[in-house]
């Protein structure tokens, strides 16, 4: 069990900054996902926690103790590689025994612990098989077991599901989550797949271009993205971001999108927009929150994609594009026609037009 604290952590490779000023506290026993597109610095962060990379600046603390100078073999970190790095020239048993042998555990103890772990991971029947021909889910279990048998305080997983096909991923996700429940370690999970992060993690750290953008529970991040990048990155499809203008008529402040319509602002957002210097603002709403029954916004319907349980409607008006996700049981708009819909005012999010930061004073 271990708490991980990253303090102003940074890493540069020559002129390239892979990670800048990362501050993150991962609680004891927490499942933290580092989520972001390729090159966002998530693997760099992970490798620094493991000790494979030395930070250019900042500190990494395990339970309050700085570990930057501790070599990776001594950090007590379990690491599951993207391709599992199973020793394929050995048997399953030898793989499990590897770490114990390296640490000089007596043979009798090794035997006992392997037996216990093999039962836990349902690997008993294949202990004497060569690791070379095993299927991916067994490789994953073996990779986790090989590290977990040493009882590391911290478990790091580097995109362990990226080599697996989509159907199998769902199985592996639930398996991973239940394994974490069994071991109860602090887990850091690197992924570019938001579905993995959303379903498994206690909290998600969203990163882009070497910066930590937002940390929060999956729902917090989904409901209240910190900026337009997080808004568009999370969700499939991501949040719609439209260029809007504020207008004030009588007592009601509303935000208008040219050619589309306008939405009155909720009281919370009315206070939030006072930070803005001009009338320009970015308006965001989730495609799922489009209300078919309401009125107020009108856009031209382009493509209508039916994907079973739900339908994605592509909307456009001039330069402005948006998507709506509709459940299967509503009347669908006709393609190539104008369509009127509403977005409930509590589902509107506003972002600063220049920085892309969410305008705070949240509704929730």
């Amino acid at each position, binding site marked *: 069990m271990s708490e991980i604290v990253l303090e102003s952590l940074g890493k540069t490779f020559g002129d390239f900054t892979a990670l800048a000023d990362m501050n993150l506290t991962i609680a004891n026993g927490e499942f933290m996902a580092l989520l972001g597109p390729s090159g966002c610095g998530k693997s760099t962060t992970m490798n620094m926690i493991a000790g*494979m990379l030395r930070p250019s600046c900042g500190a990494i603390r395990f339970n309050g103790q700085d570990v930057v100078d501790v070599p990776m073999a001594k950090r007590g970190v379990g690491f599951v*590689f993207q391709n599992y790095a199973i020793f394929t020239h050995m048997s399953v048993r030898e793989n499990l025994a590897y770490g114990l042998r390296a640490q000089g555990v007596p043979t009798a103890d090794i035997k006992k612990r392997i037996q216990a772990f093999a039962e836990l991971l349902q690997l008993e029947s294949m202990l004497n098989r060569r690791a070379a021909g095993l299927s991916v889910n067994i490789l994953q279990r073996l990779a986790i077991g090989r590290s977990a048998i040493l009882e590391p305080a911290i478990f790091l997983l580097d995109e362990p599901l990226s080599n697996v096909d989509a159907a199998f991923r769902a199985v592996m996700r639930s398996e991973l989550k239940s394994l974490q429940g069994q071991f109860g370690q602090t887990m850091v999970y690197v992924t570019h797949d938001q579905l993995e992060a959303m379903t498994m993690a206690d909290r998600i750290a969203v990163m882009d271009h070497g910066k930590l953008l937002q940390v929060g529970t999956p729902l917090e991040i989904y409901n209240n993205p910190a900026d337009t990048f997080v808004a568009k990155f999370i969700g499939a499809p991501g949040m719609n971001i439209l260029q809007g203008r504020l207008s004030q008529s009588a007592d009601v402040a509303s935000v208008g999108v040219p050619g589309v319509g306008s939405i009155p602002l909720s009281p919370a957002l009315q206070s939030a927009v006072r930070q803005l210097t001009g009338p320009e603002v970015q308006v965001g709403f989730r495609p799922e929150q489009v209300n078919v029954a309401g009125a107020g916004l009108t856009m031209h319907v382009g493509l209508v994609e039916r994907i079973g349980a739900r339908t994605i409607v592509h909307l456009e008006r001039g330069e402005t594009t948006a998507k709506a996700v509709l459940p299967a049981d509503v009347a669908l708009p006709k393609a190539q026609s104008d369509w009127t819909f509403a977005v409930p005012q509590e589902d509107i999010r506003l972002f600063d037009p220049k920085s892309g930061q969410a305008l705070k004073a949240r509704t929730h």
Partner: protein
Amino acid sequence: MTNVSTMTPVADQPEAPAKSGARLGLWLTLPAQLLVLFIALFPILMQVYISLTDWSPLDGIPWWRAHELWIGLLNYSDLIADSRFWGAMWRTLFVMAVCVPVQFLLGLGLAVLFVDDFRGKRVLYSTLLVPMMVVPAVAGYMFFMLFQSGGPVNDLLSIFTSDPVRIAWLSDPDLALIAVMVADIWQWTPLMFLILLAGMISVPQDQQMAAILLGASWWRRFFTIVLPRMKSIIIIALAIRVIEIFKIFDTLFIMTGGGPGVATETISVYIYKVTQQELIWSYVAAIALAILIVLSVVSVFAIKRMQRGQET
């Protein structure tokens, strides 16, 4: 055409055209295949044929009429009783037993050093490969001069002794073979190094990282991850050197000519002497065939081991 549907009995049908296609392919490539077979087999068959006769070019009859001098297996029974042949054979095996392990260990050690980056690596790397590129005859002359009784090797040894060392390396029957082996090790360790380095670089990095994270020391990693993963390439390197040692000739011949006496006469030198000096070609054919059989066994053994290595 797919074979996915082989679960059903009808699935045999789509294979029929494939079979006739394969037969057509065989006919079309037959001339080329026969040619290749002829090129590979002809010298061997010719050798078998001549080894069963008493033919030599001085007999005045062309080789295909050698059957007029048919002696059956006499050459082979001579070979079994030929103590000079067995001497040369054991000497070759001795050189192999010393040189191959030394070259392997030196090459492996160098590969370990060169697998990591350090300053001046590229220059040192190129320098280390130079011996391999020296023409063996030139290397022979080099070591011939180095090992003269007034040569640099003795001068070097004199530093450690009070009296100047004047060892006659190449004319001492006990020392000449050592000099020859030193030359071989000098010239061929780089090849071993090159092959082993290539093998070592191809050992997956993440496996080594995983081993480190599991707490394995350098030695444990080396013996449990690196070496087992290099198995195939090690077998290739060893097989190449074993076969090459059987052919050791030019460097050695220039240094000692196989002498003094027969002290450095390896199998290739012996064959050369029998051919060129005693002109018993049919006997040479028998020797060559015997060696071919030995080397084939070595190669087959190596290939088998390698295939087993690749299954993992």
